[in-house]
């Protein structure tokens, strides 16, 4: 267990430079945007001497690395600046929308696992049969589909023609179904493919052959010996998928007018509300690094060999 703790601490420390690197890239991006931030905030018709005063007051005349540390220290304290459009703290804007994005991404991940795992396992067990071909055909089909188009088609079918579900927006739990399904379908495909290939690999391993040779019932061999080990990379994938889903959520939330962080990002880009854009991208980056670390730690807990490799 001590080894485990050491491993976890090491991974967390390795994550810090990654987040700092991303923050530097992001800060530079925001500095390369054409236009003076002060003019953007106070408007063009303000007296130039007043603009100089503000530049002095906000520290925008300082060297760029001072500005960076200034910005970073505020960011760490939860002060992300003020939105140019909404005229309210960026942190308020983001944290009022974050729960919606988390609700959407977690629901679709859960849907993806509940549907994807059985499909992948059955396809692996019936390898080469029509079930396998059908499942993998569907998987690659949804994998090749742009999420936003799938969303539009689902909207057309269930919202407009069948009138079963609300078209878009947020008007209760039933509003969640279409966007969550749209976001989940490509992940279902991915998880089904992953668990199928893992199962096929595990089923050829010596210990599974030994289990068969011992005369264990096939249910025990498949579930206790093979499935449990094939599941490890699939569970780790849960954490690695999160950032991808948040990225995908930008488009899906825009399509379904879902009041989450992704739609806020899109709107802020269109309206050039850069403090919001900066904060959201950095938060997504931090979430990504955290979930990558969690993925590493979980896989080390589930599979002790990884810990030994790293130590040795």
């Amino acid at each position: 267990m001590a080894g485990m703790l050491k491993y976890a601490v090491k991974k967390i420390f390795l994550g810090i430079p990654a987040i700092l690197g991303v923050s530097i890239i992001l800060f530079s991006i925001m500095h390369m945007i054409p236009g003076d931030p002060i003019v953007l905030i106070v408007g063009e018709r303000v007296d130039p001497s007043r603009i100089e005063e503000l530049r002095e007051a906000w520290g925008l005349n300082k060297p760029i690395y001072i500005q960076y540390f200034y910005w970073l220290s505020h960011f760490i304290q939860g002060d992300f600046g003020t939105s140019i459009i909404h005229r309210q703290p960026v942190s308020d804007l983001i944290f009022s929308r974050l729960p919606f994005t988390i609700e959407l991404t977690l629901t679709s991940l859960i849907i993806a696992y509940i549907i994807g795992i059985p499909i992948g396992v059955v396809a692996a067990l019936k390898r080469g049969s029509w079930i396998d071909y059908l499942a993998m055909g569907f998987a690659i089909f949804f994998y090749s589909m742009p999420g936003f188009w799938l969303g539009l088609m689902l909207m057309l079918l269930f919202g407009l023609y069948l009138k079963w579900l609300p078209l878009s927006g947020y008007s209760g739990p039933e509003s969640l179904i279409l966007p969550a399904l749209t976001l989940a379908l490509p992940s279902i495909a991915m998880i089904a493919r992953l668990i199928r290939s893992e199962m096929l690999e595990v089923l050829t391993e010596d210990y599974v052959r030994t289990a068969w040779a011992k005369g264990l019932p096939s249910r025990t061999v498949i579930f206790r010996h093979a499935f449990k080990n094939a599941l490890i990379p699939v569970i780790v994938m849960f954490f690695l998928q999160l950032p991808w889903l948040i990225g995908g959520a930008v488009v899906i939330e825009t399509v379904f007018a879902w009041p989450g962080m992704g739609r806020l990002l899109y709107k802020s880009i269109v309206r050039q509300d850069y403090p919001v854009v900066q904060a959201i991208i950095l938060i997504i980056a931090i979430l990504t690094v955290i979930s990558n670390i969690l993925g590493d730690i979980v896989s080390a807990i589930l599979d002790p060999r990884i810990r030994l490799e790293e130590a040795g």
Partner: protein
Amino acid sequence: MYKSKIGIMDNVLLNARRIIEGLRMMFYYKMALIGFFIVCAVTIIAIAAPLIALRRYDETNVADRLKPPSSEYPFGTDDLGRCIFSRVIYGSRIALMVGLIVMLIEASIGVVLGLIAGYYGGIADKVISAITDIIWALPPLVLALGIVIIIGPGLLNVVAAIAIVSWPPFTRITRAKVQSLVNREFILAARAIGENNFNIIVRYILPNVLSPIIVLATLTIPSAILSTTALSFLGFGAQPPTPDWGAMLAEGRDKMIYAPWITTFPGIFIVITALGFNLLGDGLRDMLDPKLKI
């Protein structure tokens, strides 16, 4: 001189034999074959677009606005009376170009960095791996959006943004493969006969890391097409009247209720094209490198 000529002839023969073997094996993989046919079909459509299309992609016909599919307009018309069928056909040129260009940029950046990191190790490896990890730590679509903010919207800018953020898989796979090769006997032998590092990388290592790169390159094309159409759909990519599939979907989105054909047909073509490359890439992986995890 003599030695290198023999080397080249041997390589050509070996490659030809490999290609024939590959084509023969491809028939065993039905999915890959279907993918291959789809890719060929889309390529032919893109090349012969002026022959297949019924009209110019930007020809407006206000009298025929928002017409549903008919014999005159097989996929209907949009709100400017433009023929959706002709626009979709021309759009295949954009999609293929985008896929190929993004793939070439990504592969060149990624493979060169991967070769350097894997072959030289040490500080070069540490720096390259750190950069790769940091870029990979961000969802590509979000980072690409960030870049588009600086360089402005437009199809070429989107292509550049996507390529800049998506090369890390090439570096990772190349690096891992090179690391497994550098201490093998044939590399040591090459060093022993006095080959320089550049020759060792290009003539001994590169040919041996090609198969995963080919697989990854094939699978990069559909994801590049999907990312570009997503950014075009959000309005950051191709601008009108470019017949980009993503931009067409964006134009048809608010008319979906009374003119669903504007959004339906470009989407179907995106799916078919991406499907073709994905099937082909999967098949190539099964043939060349079944243990490869991409």
